[in-house]
């Protein structure tokens, strides 16, 4: 561990993570305690100071056991994923590690793939999702995938097509779904153009270009709204139209959270106090 880099808060919370680390500080999925310490110390700066993230109803995430976090995806680069990870680590009691499903193309990048695996962010394969949930872990999915982060500023906060694989996995593993709205990401990195040549060079699905050209999010405040858990009954082998119906319910729930969240976000940007919007959806 590098005590100079890792904050006391991170070190203390790391000790309380419910992960079976061995004597080398590794868990069976290849997660390294040392890497987690550095990773969360890095995220802490962005979570607490850069994006000044505020969480709402994080208690909807279970204290123990499996759950699937399903969120909108936005902001050119997946900073929302990092902030949701940080929220579960810094603001949830007890701290929990969420496992994201990383785009497969990132696995071929030196250092990037290594870091993703050491901090529990595995390639987006159904086998990983099922295994993590069966091990009572928290899975974080963005059913919009790269379509979500790649959307342009003019389409902000409009959910694009959801994949349905996550719902079959949730049913198969009997995992509750926590719908999440991440607000602020669209404004932090407003994509106005996709540089196709750069994307091709880096093997990425797109390359976001904001008005200020550098694809780095601006330090604007963000909020994360955790919805009530949704539990669906089934085996995961249902017909497509049934699964699509369930997915629509999740999408509706996220849309309602987004609407409410956007209104609150407007108040925060305007310097007004929160919670004057009546009942939460």
């Amino acid at each position: 561990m590098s005590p100079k880099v890792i904050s006391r808060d991170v070190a203390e919370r790391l000790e309380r993570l419910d992960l079976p680390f061995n004597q080398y500080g590794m868990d069976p999925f290849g997660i390294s305690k040392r890497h987690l310490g550095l990773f969360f110390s890095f995220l802490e700066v962005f979570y607490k100071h850069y994006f000044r993230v505020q969480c709402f109803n994080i208690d909807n995430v279970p204290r123990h056991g499996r759950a699937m976090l399903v969120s909108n995806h936005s902001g050119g680069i997946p900073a929302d994923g990092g902030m949701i990870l940080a929220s579960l680590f810094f603001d949830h009691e007890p701290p929990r590690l969420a496992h994201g499903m990383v785009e497969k193309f990132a696995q071929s990048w030196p250092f990037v793939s290594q870091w993703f695996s050491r901090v529990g962010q595995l390639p987006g394969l159904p086998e990983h999702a099922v295994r993590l949930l069966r091990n009572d872990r928290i899975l974080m999915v963005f059913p919009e995938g790269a379509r979500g982060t790649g959307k342009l500023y003019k389409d902000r906060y409009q959910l694009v097509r959801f994949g349905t694989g996550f719902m079959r996995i949730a049913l198969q593993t009997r995992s509750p779904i926590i719908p999440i709205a991440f607000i602020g990401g669209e404004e932090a990195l407003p994509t106005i153009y996709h540089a196709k040549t750069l994307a091709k060079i880096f093997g990425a699905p797109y390359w976001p270009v904001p008005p200020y050209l550098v694809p780095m999010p601006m330090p604007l405040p963000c909020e994360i709204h955790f919805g009530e858990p949704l539990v669906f009954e089934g085996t995961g082998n249902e017909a497509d139209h049934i699964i699509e119906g369930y997915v629509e319910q999740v999408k509706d729930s996220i849309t309602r959270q987004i609407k409410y969240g956007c209104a609150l976000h407007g108040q925060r940007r305007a310097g007004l106090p929160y919670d004057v919007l009546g009942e939460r959806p």
Partner: protein
Amino acid sequence: MKVLITGISGAHARVVAERLVAEGNDVVGIDRRPWPHPREGIRVYQADVRKRPAADVFRKERPEVVIHMATITHFSASREERLRINLQGTRIVFEHCHNHGVKHAIFVGRHTIYGAAPDAPLYRTEDEPPLAVSTFPELADLVAADLHACTALWRWPKLTTSVLRLVYTLGPLHRGTLASFLARPRVPMILGFDPLYQFMHDEDAADALLAAVEHRLSGVFNVAGPPPVPLSVLCRGSHRTALPIPEPLFPHVIGRFGLPHLPPGAVSHIKHPIVVDASAFREATGFEHRHDAHAVMTAFRGGG
């Protein structure tokens, strides 16, 4: 019970043979290589499993159980030789098992047949396809041998067949693919990649084979010991120096500067993990490894 071990003169097979004898079994072995002074209870026939004298051993000894360990890796033979020994040898041994009334045949395979790839799942179950045919073409003979052994499950239902896919073995014997890779003081890595490596102690591997014999397993099973550790940890634990090399330079420096010679396909196995889910084997046999990763690395470097 009479057990025949092919490739008995190999370091791992000797351990298995001695353990079987210690448990009161009668052990015979076939190998091209000699085993000058085996302990009492072990008879070694110096022959090639693919040749006629080996058939005569089956005919004369009538073993009840056969453990097929006469396979080799890229570290010890040419491509043609590997194909002859691994694939043809496996085919002939299983035919002998069928023709000479063997009740239980065990094929000792390797987990590397699953292949390493960036988009492969971290934990491989037995129903995963063997990607090594494309990611590591030099392993094609072992993949073919493994799949051929699997055909015995439906071709000869009366012959109980166990196809075991063992993770790397490591320990005091200093033999095997991983031991060869770690044999020199400097171990090559690909810069920016640090894959998980899964290995088990030489003795745990022998325990697992004995468990397969005892439980007369039928089917395909992954066999593993402790949870995997990154290659960098394995290097440190084995007192080796990891040498991260940028991937474009790798083909030019490998085999030089005190680094081991590796076939081109091996790069994928140094970049990405091959980790297996061995829960089916554990459930079927109750097998538990006795040595954790630290103990295995300590034993390998000669510390205990």
